[in-house]
């Protein structure tokens, strides 16, 4: 049985036709990645590392130049399966304003279902369900432009969720939000994953990546790390060298280890850090 998502040795480049002669910018240099159903994968990388390009391979927005991408065994290059692929893998983007089509919340959530020709009564049911899931049901008749960034982004998620996808790819969904909006979205993501939806979260926030089950780090068009958050974050030096942050607590414990203090080198959460510092400072008193 093959994996749910399989990216096999994909090369992808953008061609700049305005340059004379046209220049080619290779963004993905032979990337392979497999994702199981129900996983929560965070993809980290600085701007221009190729992480957004990778995300767009998953629902046939970008097609590989060489190599292939399989979703549930369907090849993304197979035009006949295009809409099946897009129904399976939904996508949420960075700017909440630019992905809402309609002037009424529920009409927007219904958009994808209308496109794929779902029965009106079924649309109603699924729209209500999706809005309930993201906690926006009471706003169903509001105008989207009057909502907060976090709320708009939840509407966008509901619009994708209504298609009942098996996987949702989120391309920096919190980058333009304030702390409250970020919290709303992260809670929604956790809740969706708990309900069995596969999540691929493109981000550069470490605290968000720490919530994932698996972290993939991209740099310069290649995957340079792919492991549990604990293992990845413990390579603090490597992350810093590719322009990424390390969680505060990891940075602190690593700095202390360098001073000769014995502490575990894989601390990534606040709780663990409090616990081990408490032990360190209290023990023996």
């Amino acid at each position, binding site marked *: 049985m093959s994996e749910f998502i399989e990216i096999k040795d994909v090369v992808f480049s953008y061609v700049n036709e305005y340059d004379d002669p046209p220049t080619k910018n290779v963004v993905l240099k032979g990337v392979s990645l497999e994702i199981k159903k129900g996983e929560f994968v965070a993809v980290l990388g*600085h*701007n*221009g590392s190729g992480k957004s390009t990778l995300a767009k391979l998953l629902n046939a927005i970008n097609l590989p130049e060489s190599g292939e991408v399989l979703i549930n065994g369907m090849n993304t290059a197979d035009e006949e399966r295009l809409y099946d692929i897009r129904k399976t893998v939904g996508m949420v983007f*960075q700017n909440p304003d630019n992905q809402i089509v309609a002037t009424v919340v529920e009409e927007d959530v219904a958009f994808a279902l209308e496109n794929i020709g779902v029965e009106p009564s079924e649309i109603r049911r699924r729209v209500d369900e999706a809005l309930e899931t993201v906690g926006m049901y009471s706003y169903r008749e509001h105008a989207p432009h009057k909502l*907060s*960034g976090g709320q708009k982004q939840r509407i966008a998620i509901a619009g994708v969720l209504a298609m009942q996808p098996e996987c949702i790819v989120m391309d920096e969904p919190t*980058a*333009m939000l*304030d*702390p*409250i*909006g970020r919290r709303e979205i992260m809670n929604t993501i956790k809740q969706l994953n708990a309900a069995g939806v596969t999540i691929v979260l493109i981000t*550069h926030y470490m*605290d968000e990546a720490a919530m994932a089950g698996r972290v993939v780090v991209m740099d310069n068009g290649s995957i340079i790390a792919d492991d549990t958050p604990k293992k990845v974050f413990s390579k603090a030096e490597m992350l810093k060298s590719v*322009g*990424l*942050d390390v*969680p*505060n*607590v990891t*940075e*602190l414990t690593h*700095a*202390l280890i360098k*001073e000769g*203090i014995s502490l575990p080198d894989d601390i990534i959460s*606040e709780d663990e*850090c*409090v616990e081990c*510092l*408490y032990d*360190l*400072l*209290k023990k*023996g*008193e």
Partner: protein
Amino acid sequence: MGIIRTEDLTYVYGEGTPFRKVAVDGVNIDIDEGEIVGIIGHTGSGKSTLIQHFNGLLKPTSGKVFIDGEELFADKSRLKEIRFKVGLVFQYPEYQLFEETVYKDIAFGPKNMGLSDDEVDRRIKETARLVGLKPELLDKSPFELSGGQKRRAAIAGVMAMEPKVLILDEPTAGLDPHGRDRILGLIKEYHAEKGTTVLLVSHSMEDVAKTVSKILVMNDAKVFMYSDRSSVFARSEELSAMGLTVPQVTKVFDRLRAMGIEFQDEVFSIDYAKGLVLRLLEEKRKNLD
């Protein structure tokens, strides 16, 4: 008297409509010249409305604003003059780039001030250096630059007006860690080199903690507190409840204190935290001896 001072500044949106909202409510502040101040508050706390008063883009509903000792709006003919003393960099400033070249775009502000071509040229070159834009980028179209470069070019456009006060609204929004550190770094350098008063608006306490010495906290249209960094961080729990992100290290040490570890300090940076742990360990060893 400080470079920016307000007296009972109040601003009401949509007066007389059902959408009436008091965005700034009786604010009295006095910011000293040469200070680097962080302004924090959740979305809708009034911080963005407040700063738009400082260069006369908004007119107070009641109360007064003084810039460099002179009251804004007292004499309308002086407004433009006073406005040039306060440079305001908006959120996502790269969206205001419009000229054919980066050079011309940075020149827009200084030219509006009526400066000579030589002076404009000098300022462009200086600010381009300050924000780390290489000279060869100046002849490029601003739309060809990378995201981080665009943002720095837009900031340079305001810096080149050489205001006495530079205000930046969420200058790191949407940038990756590298881009963010670069912007915060250049703001610090600019402040150190020019001695200009800098106001940095943010909802990230972490960004602010790294950069400023004093912090103004806005909450529900009012000033919650205006004080030095550690007194503000001493109330980190209240700030967190307002919807601000407190740095993870601050939270860790707040919890350690609650668990009975004794120390006086307010922790807001990794370096500080490291020093504190080492010191506490030292004390513990002495006690054991």
